[in-house]
């Protein structure tokens, strides 16, 4: 048995770099700790708390305060009412830490408004038990309720150290992380919060969204690392702006084509590294897309072909081997190629979902007699984002009612467009729904509308 006193890990790294930038103001690590201690003192006793803060500094203060109080950060995959209620059902004593609108369900909230102006904490950096569950990240499982993926504080220390080494971000002075990804997403948590907490980098509190926001943030935060997604990167490339050069770009959530990566390196004038990861395993590998198509795992992380065709991964951060939700060709224990997603997995603008889960949720709506989501054609790579469509048999429900019920339990990205109501689904004798028949039916309704 591990002696808990021997595995204590610091809450933050001690470094001269500020922990955060709020606008053009820098927040020192000691000032951050003062905010964390003040917030932790307000947290009621519980096992866990929702961290729904949108501002990255608020999120980081809430994250650390929850840890300091011996609790777990609950990171829901979306803010749908049904989704939050399902998680809250498992953690009835959890409150929600928020900085924008209240939580979508009726649970107590604690507002986070810290701005790094509460003075500076004295004394040593607090330590957290390594085995404490730091976060529960939820993915939409095929089983029904959201599946929880636990990360201990030791595991988060491990993956952060691996990433900083693999990405050569461990040196001084550390850059500022300009992130377009939400901190509740595992990639966002790791790359825009933990690199700052446990490394020498500085997080930018804001979350630039439009290309002009990103341009301004990069110009104001030099030296900067842009932490983004293919979806946002392509939008920036299409915006036709003059870009200040970050020191590098990190990109994850869906694979980038070598052409787009090359264009990004040219337009931004810096190297681009992609990170491979998933909610189940966290980040595990990286590649410089303009130079290599294979992924190299983080130091200490090994990948193996599975017996059932599903590769699995294991590093010091994984108590058990973790099967990956993609088709993987393992080249050696630290090198692999990603060949595509498993049949049931969807990826819309970087968000993953299980098609079976979406269909189950559609058919669980009262008044929906039958219904099916139709994934976009994977070959179509028109600009912008292609959406799911849905055919629904629901004589007594309107399209708006069905959309509203879906919005309660899934990310808006998965809401069908169009949602077409039909008299019945064209099931074959075996109950199957051939894709072409569904597409024909959809096209037919498009013409009639």
């Amino acid at each position, binding site marked *: 048995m591990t002696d808990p006193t021997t595995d204590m890990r610091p809450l933050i790294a001690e470094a001269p770099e500020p922990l955060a930038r709020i606008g053009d103001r820098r927040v020192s690590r000691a000032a951050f700790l003062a905010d964390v201690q003040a917030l932790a003192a307000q947290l009621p006793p519980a096992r866990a708390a929702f961290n729904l803060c949108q501002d990255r500094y608020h999120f980081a203060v809430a994250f650390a305060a929850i840890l300091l109080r011996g609790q777990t950060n609950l990171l829901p995959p979306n803010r749908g009412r049904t989704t939050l209620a399902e998680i809250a059902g498992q953690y009835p004593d959890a409150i929600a830490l928020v900085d924008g609108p209240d939580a979508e369900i009726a649970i107590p909230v604690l507002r986070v408004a810290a701005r790094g102006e509460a003075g500076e904490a004295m004394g040593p950096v607090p330590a957290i038990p390594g085995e404490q569950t730091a976060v529960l990240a939820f993915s939409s499982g095929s089983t029904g309720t959201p599946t929880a993926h636990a990360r201990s504080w030791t595991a988060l220390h491990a993956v952060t150290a691996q990433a900083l080494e693999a990405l050569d971000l461990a040196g001084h002075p550390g850059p500022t992380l300009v992130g377009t990804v939400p901190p509740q997403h595992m990639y966002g948590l790791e790359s825009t919060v933990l690199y700052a907490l446990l490394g020498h980098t500085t997080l930018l509190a804001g979350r630039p*969204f*439009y290309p*002009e*926001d990103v341009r*301004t943030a990069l110009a104001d935060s030099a030296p900067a690392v842009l932490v983004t997604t293919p979806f946002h990167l392509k939008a920036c490339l299409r915006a036709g702006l003059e870009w200040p050069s970050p020191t590098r770009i990190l990109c994850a959530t869906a694979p980038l084509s070598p052409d787009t990566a090359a264009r990004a390196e040219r337009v931004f004038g810096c190297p681009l590294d992609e990170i491979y990861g998933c909610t189940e395993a966290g980040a595990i590998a990286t590649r410089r897309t303009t130079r290599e198509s294979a992924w190299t795992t983080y130091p200490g992380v090994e990948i193996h072909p599975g017996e059932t065709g599903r590769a699995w991964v294991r590093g010091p951060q994984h108590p058990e081997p973790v099967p990956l939700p993609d088709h993987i060709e393992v080249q050696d224990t630290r090198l692999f190629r990603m060949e595509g997603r498993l049949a049931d997995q969807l990826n819309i603008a970087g968000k993953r979902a299980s098609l079976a889960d979406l269909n189950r949720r559609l058919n669980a709506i009262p008044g929906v007699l039958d219904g099916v989501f139709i994934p976009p054609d994977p070959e179509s790579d028109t600009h*912008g*984002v292609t959406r799911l469509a849905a055919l629904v048999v629901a004589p007594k429900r309107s399209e708006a009612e069905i959309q509203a019920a879906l919005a309660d339990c899934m990310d*808006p990205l998965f*809401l069908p467009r169009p949602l077409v109501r039909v008299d019945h689904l064209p099931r074959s004798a075996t109950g199957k729904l051939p894709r072409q028949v569904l597409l024909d039916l959809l096209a037919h309704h498009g013409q009639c*509308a």
Partner: protein
Amino acid sequence: MASQTAFEQEVAQLIVDSLNLEDVTAGEIEPEDALFRDGLGLDSIDALELALAISRAYGVQIRSDDENNRQIFASLRALSAHIEANRAAS
């Protein structure tokens, strides 16, 4: 239904074209109705796509730290007014 001004018609067409709205025509967009979630049911991806189209067509850059960002996208009328005002100012 309230009638669209000539410029609102132009912006409505831009919305329909840039977002590939198959089941809505430009003329059907109510000038005062919400564009997002409750009206046309648009989301953040649409906002980004629309911002790109607006910058290409009118040279107006949308920013999320604009105090009135929510208002800009509140309706076809509000969006058209924002574009017109900023196009005129530049």
